């Protein structure tokens, strides 16, 4: 990426980002429906088709809302959650990265947006009252503890742009040197696993009408963004990088990246459906999820950077010693010069 960002590339990147966002938002309910169907197949239940989730959302959009106490706040939270989820989807690379110089967010901002969306999604459960209040508080607690659990992963990504981080990972093979980042991807993937109150069933939301549709769509978007993030980190080589060569190779890489994204989603759907086979109570599921995310992220960080940090530490100490030696020599020289100066008069 030695070349400078041209207007053409910037416009192409804007188009690609818009396309990625629309693709992600449209595919989110499909993915959720697929996971639901696969989990039903694994557990021997009969569930809706993959498109049933979209039909449900569409149906809820057209239904009149049943106004209840605290509905204004719930509606606001749902809209905010959807906005945050779409914002995160816009920042997440699906099939292409952005070139250097293009404004790109950091990984911390991305994770914060997703955790904020999850918190907002838990808010209607608390506001509505009734039987779901306790589960809503538990969900809020679990989501607020997610960001501390993600600290090792955030440390791995560092303070650089997420796109630059992925462009660095892109040079590493996931089978070889990039293997620790596969572990990091697994940690990110486990963020979406073991959610909901029961195996496979999401928290019951008492919203109605368009608010409920927005709530469902935002939930699916958050899930798909986490999955896509995990896939990007685990195998960044499948993403296209604009500016490396001409437009046509970039477009071909984008198509291949889209195909690889679908393949990653298929694998993730299988794994997610497999995690739903574990029947645990909700608090225990939350604990398992947080512990898995934190410990796997810690292990990945150790594996990826322990050797390098040791080498860097050794280099730093070596350079510090060199500097000190040089300074000692200089002091000796200065003292010699001063001695000579003192001696001459």
């Amino acid at each position, binding site marked *: 990426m030695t070349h400078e960002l041209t207007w053409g590339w910037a416009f192409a990147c804007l188009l690609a980002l818009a396309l990625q966002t629309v693709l992600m938002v449209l595919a989110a309910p499909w993915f959720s429906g697929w996971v639901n169907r696969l989990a039903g197949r694994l557990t021997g239940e009969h569930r809706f088709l993959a498109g049933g989730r979209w039909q449900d959302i569409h149906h809820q959009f057209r239904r009149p809302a049943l106004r209840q106490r605290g509905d204004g706040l719930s509606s606001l939270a749902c809209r905010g959650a959807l906005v945050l989820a779409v914002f995160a989807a816009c920042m997440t690379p699906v099939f292409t990265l952005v070139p250097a110089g293009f404004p790109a967010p950091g990984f911390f901002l991305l994770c914060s947006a997703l955790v904020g969306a999850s918190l907002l999604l838990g808010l209607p459960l608390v506001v509505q009252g009734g039987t779901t209040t306790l589960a809503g508080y538990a969900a809020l607690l679990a989501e607020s503890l997610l960001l501390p659990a993600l600290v090792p992963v955030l440390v791995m990504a560092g303070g650089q742009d997420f796109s630059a981080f992925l462009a660095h990972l892109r040079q590493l093979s996931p*089978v070889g*040197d990039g*293997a620790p980042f596969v572990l990091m991807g697994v940690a990110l993937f486990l963020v979406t696993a073991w959610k909901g109150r029961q195996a496979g069933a999401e928290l019951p939301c008492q919203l109605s009408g368009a608010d409920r549709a927005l709530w469902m769509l935002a939930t699916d978007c958050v899930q798909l963004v986490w999955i896509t993030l995990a896939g990007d980190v685990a195998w960044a080589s499948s993403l296209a990088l604009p500016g490396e060569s001409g437009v046509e190779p970039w477009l071909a890489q984008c198509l291949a990246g889209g195909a690889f994204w679908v393949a990653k989603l298929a694998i993730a759907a299988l794994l997610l459906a497999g995690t739903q086979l574990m029947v645990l109570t909700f608090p225990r599921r939350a604990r398992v999820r947080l512990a*898995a995310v934190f410990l796997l992220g810690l292990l990945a960080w150790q594996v990826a950077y322990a*050797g390098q940090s*040791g080498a860097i530490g050794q280099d730093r100490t070596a350079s510090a010693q060199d500097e000190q030696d040089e300074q000692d020599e200089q002091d000796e020289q200065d003292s010699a010069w001063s001695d000579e100066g003192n001696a001459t008069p």
Partner: protein
Amino acid sequence: MTLAVILAPLLALCVVARGIGFLPALGVVTAVAMLVDAREPLQEFGAVCVVLFSVLPVWFVSRYQDDGARERTGPMVPFLALGLMVILQLATGTPAAMGEAPGHAGAAYLPAGLCVALAGLVAVTCRQAMVWQWAGLLACVDGVMLSGVIENQVMVVGVTALAGCVVALLGGMCVHRVMLRVAVAPAQDGAGAERPSAQSAGFELGDVEQTGPEPRGLGPEAVVAPRIWTEAEAAAEDEEPLPRPDKAAKKAVPSDGEAKADVDQPPAGTGALQDKRASDAETVASDDDAETVKQKDVPDASHDTAKPTETESIETGVMKTDPSEDALSEDKAQDRKAGLNPAAPDAEASEKIPEHTSDTATSSAADQPEPFGPEEKEPEAEPVPRTPEMIARDVWLRGYLTERGRDA
């Protein structure tokens, strides 16, 4: 650092979390992790050993019934293993530790073999099911062998291979001793067609004997109580004969006598029933003697009619012999030996049999149509052919279920 090296501890965690099902995947990934760097005889030997130790036990266990019902440990056990892995990595990945190993300086490093072994030890320590602990031991063997192969330690690989053989053999013997075999019903074209469906669908001692001994190391003679076994054998002997024509002709004569006696004397048998039952327990010991005496006493008619009754209800075999009957038959035997009444065997049979039939008629309803001769008896005896294997299976299953209930 390869992906296989990263995946091996993850799969070991899956073994800790879910059981022996992930062991073949762990073995294959460990073998790949060994073979990726170099393909020398040491690596190849280690890979073959690891695959064998991981695949063969799972195949062996798959022939037995699942025994995971007693597991009470929670889902947090894999996190203990994961935390210990982090601590291990912290201890071995520090610059001081890395400086000692010249090959690892500056590169990503994970002591995958030690992590796998650690996960196996956690499974052995924290899990309660026997198969789970066996899987943990095998994962431990895999991990140590991976570590030895990566570090090129021939002695470690050799000793681990030996230990793996011992662990696999001992674990297999324990599994074979403790666990129950999966029901195997081989479809034999000739013999399978003859058996009734209820028998061929279930667990058969005969099938087990062909492939190996009884699951708990006991033969059918030891499992089944000796008295029941002898009764079952007697029942099997009595079931098989289709009546020969001359026997059938002989039977036709006493059947009339039986019918008459049945009409004449049913109330006498029912009236004496209470006293007879009260003294049943005392006559169990002399049961066999009474049978032989009866056979001597009634050579042709009563033998043929009384035996199918026993085949139909073996549990009521104790009820059939009564003290009065015994005394009567003994008296008659003495009379016969003395030659007092040699010319009237048919009359004696007609005297003896009604008591017998009335007794069995009250004891079991299935014996009701017994006195109507062999032509009516045969179609009823066919649908319930209780072979010794079936009885032995029932007794064994009852004992097994009570044992499981006691465990629960």
